[in-house]
């Protein structure tokens, strides 16, 4: 193929053909791209990984975000201005996310951005929005976004971070003198989860009997199991995410680790549990930002679940789906309070906002714009106890929102 030569064909072209060909060529190139009419709608950009391993979570997020926008538009929008959601596929890649964000800001002239599911994408979008002074509500679990290095006064972090989830889970699962072994994914998010657990263990007095860092995105964990088993821990803490979590728990069960110790994870993912059989996840304890089971005790959860079921043919909202709702709704409520889209007014409104849209009372902490919210602790149910396909977990604890659980502003590097 590379050996083919340019002039290997003596096709006899007259001048007329040649000009016609060039004409159509230029015509195609100059397809008139209609610039988006700048009407008075409030435009919210929503980058999410529609392609790739978290496509299901992304679709849930889009459905929840669209639900929030519909609810606000049905009540007359914001001062009569309709809200429009512009969903873009960031392909779970920071580079793509930055390009899509640039397009949303430069071409679509969005007033704010909500979204992102991975910490790399969140940090990329944050980098673009903070240079251009665009509001950004990020909904991916990460500690890095709270630190002063990445801080942007236009960015509000609606999601939980590892410090909060590990603190809540540890308080439930660890006792004084519990022997804990850690299997940790060797990347930033993994280190954050380990640090959170260590912090909580120090407070409770639980003892670490061993730590193994496994390569990020590894498929095979069998090589770590023998060593973990030899540590004879009471609790095996597996700190990784997504497919790594499902793989490592499955292989820990294969190696019989669940017989001798209880498996605890910082975050229990709805869709990862579905990706593995109930037997494998049975008894695993982990944290979460939202579980539809909250509707039994929380009116706002009941309202959200019912609205979601109505809009999506009876389907229930998942943990990551709920972030789409709480992220967009908190922004819109702030815009309503600020009476429009003026960035500084909306920032002030967000900083002062008290909102309870799906999971109980929440507010944004002033110094790092982290949403202080409740943290659920769930335990995966046995197949027998499940009352339906979506009845995956039982809520074993619900940590009330408190700043004590967070790293202090000074710790994060903010001047106090």
């Amino acid at each position: 193929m590379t050996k083919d030569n340019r002039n290997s064909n003596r096709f006899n072209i007259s001048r007329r053909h040649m000009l016609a060909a060039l004409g159509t060529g230029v015509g195609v190139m100059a397809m008139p791209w209609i610039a988006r009419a700048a009407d008075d709608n409030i435009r919210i950009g929503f980058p999410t990984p529609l392609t790739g391993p978290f496509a299901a979570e992304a679709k849930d997020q889009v459905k929840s975000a669209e639900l929030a926008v519909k609810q606000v538009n049905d009540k007359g929008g914001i001062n009569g201005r309709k809200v429009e959601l512009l969903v873009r596929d960031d392909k779970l890649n920071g580079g793509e996310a930055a390009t899509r964000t640039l397009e949303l800001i430069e071409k679509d002239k969005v007033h704010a951005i909500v979204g992102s599911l991975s910490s790399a994408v969140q940090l990329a979008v944050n980098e673009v929005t903070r240079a251009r002074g665009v509001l950004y509500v990020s909904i991916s679990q990460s500690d890095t976004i709270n630190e002063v290095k990445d801080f942007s006064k236009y960015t509000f972090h609606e999601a939980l971070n590892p410090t909060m989830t590990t603190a809540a889970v540890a308080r439930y699962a660890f006792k004084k003198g519990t022997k804990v072994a850690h299997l940790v994914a060797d990347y930033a998010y993994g280190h954050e989860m380990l640090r959170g657990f260590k912090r909580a263990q120090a407070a409770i007095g639980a003892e670490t009997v061993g730590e193994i860092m496994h390569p990020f995105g590894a498929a095979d964990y069998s090589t770590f199991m023998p060593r973990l088993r030899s540590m004879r821990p009471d609790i095996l803490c597996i700190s990784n995410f997504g497919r790594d979590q499902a793989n490592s728990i499955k292989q820990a069960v294969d190696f019989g680790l669940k017989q001798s110790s209880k498996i605890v994870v910082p975050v229990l993912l709805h869709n990862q549990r579905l990706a593995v059989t109930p037997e494998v996840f049975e008894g695993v304890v982990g944290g979460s930002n939202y579980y539809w089971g909250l509707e039994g005790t929380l009116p706002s959860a009941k309202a959200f679940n019912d609205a979601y079921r109505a809009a999506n043919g009876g389907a229930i909202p998942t943990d990551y789906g709920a972030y789409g709702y709480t992220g967009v709704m908190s922004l819109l409520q702030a815009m309503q309070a600020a009476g429009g889209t003026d960035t500084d007014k909306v920032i002030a409104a967000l900083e002062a906002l008290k909102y309870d849209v799906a999971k109980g009372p929440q507010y944004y902490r002033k110094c790092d714009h982290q949403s202080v919210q409740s943290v659920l602790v769930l335990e995966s149910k046995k197949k027998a106890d499940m009352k339906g396909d979506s009845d995956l977990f039982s809520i074993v604890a619900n940590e009330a929102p408190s700043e004590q659980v967070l790293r202090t502003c000074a710790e994060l590097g903010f001047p106090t």
Partner: protein
Amino acid sequence: MDTELILMQLFSGVALGAILVITALGLSIIFGMMGVVNFAHGALFMVGAYAGLWVASLTGSFWWGLLVAPIMIGVFGMLIEFVLIRRLYGRSIDDPLLLTFGLSYVLVEGVRIVFGSDGIPFPTPSLLTGVVDLGVGFFPIYRIFVVALVFAIVVLLWLGLEKTKFGLIVRAGSRDPMMMRVLGVDISKVWLAVFGLGVGLAALGGVLAGPMRSVNPEMGALVLAEAFVVTVIGGLGSLVGAIIAGLLVGVVISMTALFAPEMATIVMFALMAIVLLIRPQGLFGKLA
């Protein structure tokens, strides 16, 4: 480090190596016999896992999945050779590589459309779940089965290639396809069978790995890089090389996981870089 731990670690290295061997064998057979690098090898490994899962859920038994899926995907591989790869013979050796690279995109996205982009549980067959205590440590039964099966297949393959007429034709065909045609052997049929066999082995690797890892559309990407590393270390086109190198890489990864777990993935590539510097043609390969 007590000896029990070392033995268990060594065994899990051999089990990991077994999967590497079966996938690298498929790649080496196709390259060794046809001079074609199958860049869709990782994707077909993944398609094999899904096929095994699909057949197992239809028939309700893992064993049917294990038997039927590799054959089914092997035939699918023949279809790929017949419809696509065949048109490329006589052209630059890069073309099949580029074609299969494009094909891997189509296969991965196709599986996403049909089975969704989330992982699907591949339950370990009830007969093989659990751990057995061999006195020197705890060994998961499923992995013992995998090692045994891969060993059996390797022996079967060796017998097939060394001892049967078909094996003779295949090996001669790889040396000098022109001569085979002159001798009246329909070389295109041989290549059809060889490509089907190579793809079938990749699918078998997928089915065997299914219960060990969660089955998802992206599982093929890492497997392709692993298969390349093993084939390069073993020596391109040498079957013995693929077998020895597969086990070697599996054990080296496992032992590294004991001492410096985070380096486990890097060590595979570093090992390859070292082999390249000392013996560019690989341990058992002939100088390209």
